[in-house]
C-alpha cells in the first residue's frame, strides 16, 4: 500500500475536512477512525471546517492526514512541510521516524535541504529531470569536500598547495589560506606543516553546499547506482 501527498493539494471545495477523510478513506474500503483522530490531534487540525476555508498550512495538514492514515509500506511525500509552522514540522518529522521505525519507506521530495538532512537516510539528487546521485546521507557526507582555513605567521605555501591533487578553489588573502579538499587530508597537511602555521580550521559543508556543488558542476556524473554510492 502507498500513502501519497501531492505537491499541490487537490481542490475539495465545500467539503469539510472530515468528509474528505471519509471520502478518500472510502476509496480503500474504509479508514481507521482512531488513527485519523490521533493524526488530526498531533497535527492540530480541525476536521470540522470546510476545505475552502482552510489556510494553506491546514490544507497541507489534511494532506498529511490522508497520506499517513492508512498503514503503508511506501509513503510518497512531495514538499510535505510547505506551509507548516515549525512546531508541526517537528511533529511531521516524528511521524516520518515512526513510519521508518515501523519498517515503512518514506520517499520525500523537498527543496528544503535542512529537512532532507533532518528526515532522510538516503538522498537522490535530480538535475534537469535526471537522477544524478543516490547515496546514503552519511555516504554523501563522506563523498563531499571539506573547506579548510589556515593562518600563517609568514609566507603561505600557496603554489605547493595548488599543485596538490584534490585541492581546489585555493585563495590567499594576506596570510590567510582557504581551500576545498576532496578525499584525504594527508598530503595537504604535510605541505601546510612546512610553513609557519598558526591556526587551522576545517568544516563540513552542509548538504545544501554539496547540492550546489553538484549543480555548479557542468560535467555532473551520470546516474550512480544506489548500491555503489
Amino acid at each position, binding site marked *: 500500500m502507498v500513502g501519497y501527498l501531492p505537491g499541490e493539494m487537490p481542490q475539495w471545495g465545500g467539503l469539510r475536512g472530515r468528509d474528505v477523510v471519509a471520502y478518500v478513506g472510502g476509496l480503500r474500503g474504509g479508514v481507521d477512525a482512531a488513527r485519523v483522530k490521533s493524526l488530526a490531534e498531533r497535527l492540530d487540525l480541525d*476536521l470540522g471546517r470546510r476545505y475552502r476555508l482552510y489556510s494553506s498550512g491546514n490544507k497541507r495538514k489534511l494532506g498529511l492526514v490522508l497520506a499517513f492514515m492508512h498503514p503503508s509500506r511506501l509513503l510518497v511525500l512531495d514538499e510535505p512541510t510547505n506551509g507548516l509552522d515549525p512546531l508541526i514540522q517537528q511533529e511531521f518529522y516524528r511521524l516520518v521516524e515512526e513510519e521508518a521505525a515501523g519498517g515503512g519507506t518514506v520517499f520525500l521530495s523537498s527543496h528544503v535541504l535542512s529537512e532532507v538532512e533532518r528526515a532522510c537516510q538516503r538522498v537522490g539528487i535530480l538535475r534537469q529531470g535526471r537522477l544524478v546521485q543516490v547515496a546514503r546521507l552519511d555516504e554523501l557526507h563522506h563523498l563531499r569536500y571539506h573547506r579548510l582555513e589556515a593562518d600563517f605567521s609568514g609566507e603561505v605555501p600557496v603554489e605547493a598547495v595548488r599543485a596538490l591533487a584534490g585541492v581546489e578553489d585555493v585563495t590567499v588573502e594576506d596570510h590567510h589560506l582557504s581551500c576545498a579538499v576532496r578525499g584525504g587530508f594527508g598530503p595537504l597537511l604535510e605541505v601546510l606543516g612546512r610553513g609557519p602555521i598558526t591556526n587551522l580550521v576545517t568544516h563540513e559543508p552542509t548538504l545544501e553546499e554539496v547540492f550546489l556543488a553538484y549543480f555548479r558542476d557542468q560535467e555532473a556524473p551520470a546516474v550512480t547506482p544506489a548500491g555503489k554510492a
Partner: protein
Amino acid sequence: MTAVPAASSHTVSLAGGRSRDGVVTTVRYGLRAHRWAFAGVAFLGFVSPYASGASYLAAAGTAAARATFGRQTIALGPQLAYLIPLPLRPDTVPGYLWWKGLTWLTLVFAAWGLAAATGLIRNEEERGLLETWLASPLGRTRLVLARVAAFTLAAAGAVVFAGLGTAAGVASGKASVGLGSLVEQGLPLLGITLVCFGVGLVAAQLATTRRGALGLGGVVLLALYVLDAVARVNPGLDGVAAISPFHLTDLTTAIVPGGQFDGGATLALYLTAAVLIVLATAAFRERDLMGGLLRGRVTGTPVVHSPSGNPLLRLPVLRNLWQQRLGLIGWVVGTMVGAGLIVSLARSTGKLLASVSGFNRFVQSAGTSSAATAVVSSVWLSIAALIVAAYAITQTSHWASDDAEGRLEMEIAQPVPRWAVVAERCATLLVGALVMMALGSLVTAAIAPGQGVHVDTGRLVVAAGLLTLLALSFGAIGALVIARFPRVAVPVLGVVAVASFYLPLLAPLFRWPGWSLNLSLFHLYGTPLTTGIYWTGLWVMVAIVVVGFGGAMAAIRVREVGR
C-alpha cells in the same frame, strides 16, 4: 528644486501608463476567458433566428397560408405566454422570427451574462488568481471595470452574430429587415445581457462560492422572468413587471413590421446594468477575499478530529452522488416541475395545435392521432432530452475539473485503478439520469390521466430508459475526449449537443440525405412514446456508450494525469 516636479511628473506618468497597461491586459485576459462561451452563444445567436426564418417557409409558403398561420399562431400564443411573449405579426417572417427565434435567445444571453459574472470573480477567487490580479497595481475598481469592459465587448460581438442570423433568417424567408431595425433590436438584447451580468456580479459579492452566487443570481433572474411571464397573462401587473429586465426587453419589437423600439425601456436596461455594476464594485471593495457580504453569525464550534461517519461517502457511485446532492436535487426537481407543467398543459395545447393547419405536421410527426399525446411525446420528451444532455455535460465538466483540480491524481494514488475511475463516472451518470427520468416519468404518469391525456405506461418506461441511454451517450463522448484532452471536453460536447439539436431542423430545409439525421443524438433517441423504439438509434447509442467509455478506460491508462 527643479528636479522634483520632473521626477514627480515622471512617476505619475509611469504609474498611469502601468495602470493603463494593466487594464488593457486585464481586458484582454477577460476576452480570452470568454472565448469559448462567446463562440457558443454567437453560434446559437446566428443559427437560432436563421433556422426560425428558414423554417417559416416550410410552415407557411404562400400569402394565404401565412395569413392563416398568423391567425392560428395568435390563437396559440396565450397557451405559451408563460414561456415566451405573445406573438406579433406571425403572418410575417420577421414577426415569427422575433417570437420564436429571438425571445428564447434572450434567455441564452441572460444565462451567459449570469454565468460569466459569477464565474469570473468567484471562480478566479476560488482558484487563487484574484489575489494575483489584486497584487498588481490594478486595484479592485479597475479590475471590475476591466472585467465589465471585456464582457461587454464579447456580448456585443455575440449580439452582432444574432443580428446577422436574424438578417439571414429573414432573407431565407424571402423577406427583408432594415439595418436600423436590427440595431434597435440588438440594443435591448445587449442591455439585458449586461443586466444579468450585473446581477451575477452583485451575487458574487454576496455569496462566498461560485455555486452560491450562481444559485442566488439564478433565483433572482428566475423570479424576474416569472414576474414577466405572469404579467403577460395578467395585464394588470404591467406596472410591477417593469422591474423585470425581461419585460423591458420584450417591449422592443423593432424588426416586427409595425413594431417599435422602446428607447425608454432600453435605456432603463443600461441604467440598471450600470447601477448593478456600481453596487457590485462598491461591495467588492468592502469585502474580504474568499468572503462575502452575506455572512452567517460566527459561532464557536467544537474542534473535530474524527472522520465523517456518513456511510454514503464510503460507497462507490453514492459517494459522488452525495457530493453532488444539491445539484442533483435541483436537476430532479426541475425535471419533475417541467414534466408536471407541460403534461398539465398538454390537452389544451394539443387541442389548439390540432386546429392550426401550420402545426398539423408537428402532430403528425409525433406518430399519433392524439394531439395531447403528441405534445407529451414531442414537447416534453424533447425537453427532457435536452435536460439529460445538459446534465451529462455538467457531469463531464465535473470530470474535467477532477483532473484539473488534482482530485483524479489523488484517487489513482490510493490506488484506484484508472479503468475503475471511468466506470464509476459512467455509473454515477447512469444513476443520476435514471433518477431524474424515473421521477419525471412518474410525474407524467401521475398527471396525464387527470388531464385526459393517454400515455402508455410501458412506452413511458422505455422512453425514460432511452433518455438515460441518451445521457450515457453524451457522457461517453465526453469521457472519451476527457481521457486524452480534458480541457476541451466540455466545448466539444457543447458543439455535439448544439449540432444534434439543429441537425434535425436544418436537414429537411437543405435536403440533406436521410442518414445525416443519425448524426444527431436527439434524432437517435426518436419518439419512443408514440412510435416505439427507433432501433437503429438504440443500437447506435449503445455503440457510442460502449466505444466511448471503453475507449476512455483504455486511453486514460496511458496518459499523464495532472495539471
